[in-house]
């Protein structure tokens, strides 16, 4: 039985309630007198709203019908985008308004046109059908690449351009390419994805007219950030008057970071009607109106010398923003993307141009990996193609260009400074685990069965532990990206850990309890983790960018250190020794060089029952700490995929998958392995199965249900072989890096590299559907 300390594969304590149906989600919560909201959505991809007639809609059970005009009259603001990207001419990005209910035009299928509030969900939905909206249907564009000649979505954004942004020196890149012995070129698309968290988004808002306080229960990854956005930018409520609670949340993958129209409207309406207002999105609404991910169209060129040493990388990307800017949309294809283009390599010159564009589609924002999968995909694809063109072993071409352990800290040409890593170690471990030397024999065995076998590499890096506030502030972020923690002892020796990191499947309640038990030398069972409530937890920034342990965990360590420092003073008094002589180890305060000691429990008891207590010390053992990271963390590793293709049908079977990751130190290896599995599954989903398709003519969402949007299932996946190599992060107290997004970042290029290797083709767009693979297999015959 593991003792619960750091490094132990403790079973997730939260799974007891999740697996026995005892989880308490937003939709499980009911408030006295609650009303049900239903949102009438635009059936058109682009249409002027000439008039909205609600007269026929009023009727039994209908309490109110609100439109954009009602919100405008109440001066409800636009949902802001919290990161200002400065374009190549020094101008801020174009920020057209994003009102919770459309005012003049609907700009995508699913856009919010009216809010119906009734005594039942069915009555609200019935009433919505009776609303008559006079639309003037306009031509629409859902195609990212065709943004320039498409109908204009926003007067504020001529040519549908949000920004035209550059990172790098154009003259330097021209010079690097001029000296190249070989240039590899590739056009590729990073396909649009729909997040599909298991729990759809939901909200309940309640207003107390006695106190003027609001409470919002919401499926948020970051309740404090949601409160900040709603209060400061949209609704003008003092932060003291809005409590946001994110109870159990069934998955987010980024899509629940953002402030959405529905929860905003529920908060606003709860005061207007002085009744609680609830909304739970159905699956169809989630497909239409959750922020989508990816959707890049890219041209990339890699310059090399005659030996395959990388000289320069040039990237031109068009990135879809969708119809409106979601909360952090602008930073995803810039500072979370172009800054990762060095990858694991010493490429000395990198130039990246990104045009962010508006299309008549759902807004696009961070989705597991957020910019880093897009960067890794293009980089690991072009490196693979380069190896084939140069007739070099793809593993060896990577090795030749790796940043070496002696080079840290390593300043990349794209702003980041890598603190540590050892890329050859993870590559070598992965090569051994997949038995790379045995691949030719396995390929021959497949061929004898009439099958095509391929192998594909992905040596990825990501910037996680988001993020140093000063750095992101200088790049346009509207917030700091620190985290808070409070470690609160009770008199009986139990501890409540209040963390700003929200858990929606990651297992924080277990990992953080292990961490605190280890730091304070107390039993794991004595530690409870509390999260997801602005009314209980100090100001916090929430969960995204694989930051919970690296940033949130570091804040917890810092709070634990404060507890220990205070505990030393109490122990010194109890032991009649000088504070300077007290050592803390394994849960005991000891006078150095003696056997005189007090346990943490005794010290905690004394703090709350201070009968014998230092005169100049406050009672209590309850410490709050904030942690602002000094740098990003840089998880990295190598994944290798091996596939077998049936050329008769085009069906790809993933024969083997090796993932060797360097996440720094690990608290709970089982949870880390689970995160890797989930990430790879999502990455395989993108590469093989998932694809968001809008009809090019009508702008309707073709893949609006699971009948057409293909999520990966257990039988699509192999049994993953997972390994770890470790270089500890140098700048946070735990030496940790983060593991949540790695799989989704690493997997797509590994799989496409394997499939194209099997087929003997240079490229195939994602998802590599059976038909695409079959066609390539026929052409190769």
């Amino acid at each position, binding site marked *: 039985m593991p003792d619960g300390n750091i490094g132990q594969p403790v079973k997730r304590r939260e799974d007891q309630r999740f697996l026995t149906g005892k989880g308490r989600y937003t939709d499980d919560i009911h408030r006295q007198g609650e009303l049900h909201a239903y949102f009438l959505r635009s059936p058109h991809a682009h249409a002027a709203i000439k008039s909205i007639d609600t007269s026929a809609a009023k009727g039994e059970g209908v309490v109110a019908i609100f439109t954009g005009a009602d919100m405008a009259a109440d001066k409800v603001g636009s949902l802001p985008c919290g990161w200002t990207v400065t374009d190549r001419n020094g101008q801020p990005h174009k920020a057209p308004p994003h009102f919770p209910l459309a005012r003049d035009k609907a700009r995508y299928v699913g856009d919010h046109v009216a809010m119906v509030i009734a005594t039942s969900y*069915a009555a609200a939905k019935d009433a919505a059908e009776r609303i008559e909206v006079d639309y003037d249907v306009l031509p629409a564009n859902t195609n990212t690449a065709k943004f320039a000649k498409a109908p204009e979505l926003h007067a504020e954004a001529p040519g549908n351009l949000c920004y035209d942004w550059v990172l790098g020196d154009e003259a330097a890149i021209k010079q690097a390419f001029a000296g190249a012995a070989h240039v590899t070129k590739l056009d590729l698309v990073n396909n649009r994805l729909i997040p599909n968290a298991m729990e759809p988004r939901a909200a309940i808002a309640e207003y107390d007219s006695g106190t003027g306080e609001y409470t919002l229960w919401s499926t948020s990854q970051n309740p404090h950030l949601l409160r900040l956005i709603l209060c400061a930018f949209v609704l003008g409520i003092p932060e003291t008057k809005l409590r946001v609670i994110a109870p159990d949340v069934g998955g987010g993958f980024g899509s629940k970071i953002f402030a959405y129209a529905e929860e905003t409207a529920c908060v606003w309406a709860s005061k207007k009607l002085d009744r609680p207002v609830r909304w739970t999105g159905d699956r169809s609404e989630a497909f239409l109106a959750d922020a989508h991910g990816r959707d890049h169209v890219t041209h990339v060129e890699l310059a090399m010398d005659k030996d395959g040493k990388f000289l320069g990388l040039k990237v031109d990307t068009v990135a879809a923003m969708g119809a409106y800017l979601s909360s952090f949309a602008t930073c995803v294809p810039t500072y979370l993307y172009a800054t990762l283009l060095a990858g694991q390599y010493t490429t000395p010159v990198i130039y990246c141009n990104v045009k962010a564009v508006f299309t008549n589609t759902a807004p696009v924002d961070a989705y597991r990996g957020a910019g880093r999968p897009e960067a890794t995909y293009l980089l690991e694809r072009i490196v693979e193609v380069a190896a084939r063109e140069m007739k070099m072993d793809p593993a060896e071409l990577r090795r030749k260009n790796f940043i070496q352990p002696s080079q840290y800290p390593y300043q990349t040409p794209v702003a980041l400074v890598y603190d540590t890593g050892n890329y050859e170690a993870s590559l070598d471990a992965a090569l051994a685990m997949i038995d790379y030397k045995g691949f030719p024999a396995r390929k021959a065995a497949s061929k004898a069965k009439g099958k095509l076998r391929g192998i594909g590499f992905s040596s990825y890096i990501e910037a996680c532990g988001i993020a140093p506030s000063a750095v992101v502030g200088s790049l346009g972020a509207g917030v700091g990206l620190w985290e808070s923690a409070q470690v609160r002892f009770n008199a009986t020796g139990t501890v409540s850990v209040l963390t700003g990191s929200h858990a929606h499947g990651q297992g924080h309640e277990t990992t953080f309890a292990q961490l605190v038990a280890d730091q304070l030398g107390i039993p794991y069972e004595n530690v409870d983790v509390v999260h997801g409530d602005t009314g209980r937890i100090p100001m916090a920034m929430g969960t995204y960018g694989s930051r919970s342990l690296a940033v949130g965990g570091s804040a917890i360590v810092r709070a634990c250190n404060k507890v220990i420092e205070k505990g030393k003073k109490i122990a010194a008094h109890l032991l009649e020794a000088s504070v300077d002589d007290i050592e803390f180890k394994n849960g005991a305060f000891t006078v150095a060089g003696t056997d005189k000691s007090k346990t943490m429990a005794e010290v905690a008891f004394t703090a709350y029952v201070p009968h014998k207590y230092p005169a100049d010390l406050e009672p209590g053992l309850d410490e709050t700490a904030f942690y602002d990271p000094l740098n990003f963390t840089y998880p990295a590793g190598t994944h290798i995929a091996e596939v077998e293709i049936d050329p008769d*049908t085009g069906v790809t079977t993933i024969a083997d998958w090796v993932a060797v990751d360097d996440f720094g130190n690990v608290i709970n290896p089982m949870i880390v392995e689970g995160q890797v599995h989930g990430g790879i599954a999502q990455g395989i989903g993108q590469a093989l199965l998932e694809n968001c398709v809008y009809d090019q003519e009508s702008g309707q969402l*073709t893949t609006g249900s*699971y*009948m*057409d949007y293909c*999520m990966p299932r257990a039988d*699509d996946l192999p049994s993953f072989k997972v390994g770890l190599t470790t270089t500890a992060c140098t700048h946070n107290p735990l030496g940790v890096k983060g593991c949540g997004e790695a799989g989704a970042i690493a997997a797509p290029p590994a799989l496409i590299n394997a499939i194209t290797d099997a087929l003997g083709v240079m490229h195939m767009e994602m998802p590599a559907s059976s*038909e695409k693979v079959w066609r390539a297999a026929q052409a190769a015959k």
Partner: protein
Amino acid sequence: MYDFTYHRPGSVGDAAAALGKAGDGKLMAGGMTLIPTLKQRLANPSDLIDLGGIAELKGIKEEGGALVIGAMTTHAEVAASALVKGKIAALAALADGIGDPQVRNRGTIGGSIANNDPAADYPAACLGLGATIKTNKRSIAADAFFKGMFETALEDGEIVTAVSFPVPSKAGYAKFPNPASRYAIVGVFVAKTGSGVRAAVTGAGPCVFRDKAIEDALTGSWSADAVKGSSASAGSLNSDIHASSDYRAHLIGVMAKRAVQAAG
């Protein structure tokens, strides 16, 4: 879902009477297509007549050398039936491959064929085996039953009661599933029956159809190698984001070979 009046009759006669009285009645035989349609408000029947309470529509028996399966027998029951496995193993395997466990435990053979989804599995078995569809009014040969996309020979007020499958000497089914829905992109059922070789194709076209090229090839020689492709022209086949008509045309040949291999 809109409001409707729910009926749960205990006999086929009562069900027919309820249907006759209803303004716009719908029969429910498992509801695996109907319930999602209702939930999405794509249908608005006045009355829903649930056939789930009619004992006479359930069960599997052998009758005059044929396998007779009651209309309200679930896919799971067919898949698990020792009688079906013994007489027409391909039919049990087909039922075992429909949807997921939840669908197999709710969905029924009668519901499936009356709905005649172009990508459903059962129509391929009915047509491939030359089954007879029994209703409360008559018996209809499978060749005359499946008329078009979601269209059958059933008349107003007619209720499928059972399907009678002649036992073939050999039969096999191979399906290429849609990766998302797992309905058939192409499914081919082949059988060597007393009345000759039959091959039925589902998923590929707007309605299940017999494939003469495959039948002729297998009549000449019952072997996977004999199959040279489909008689269907790509132009007559479905094309969507998952599979073009050319790909479907190709897959008919591949699935036909695999169905022959599965038949043994």
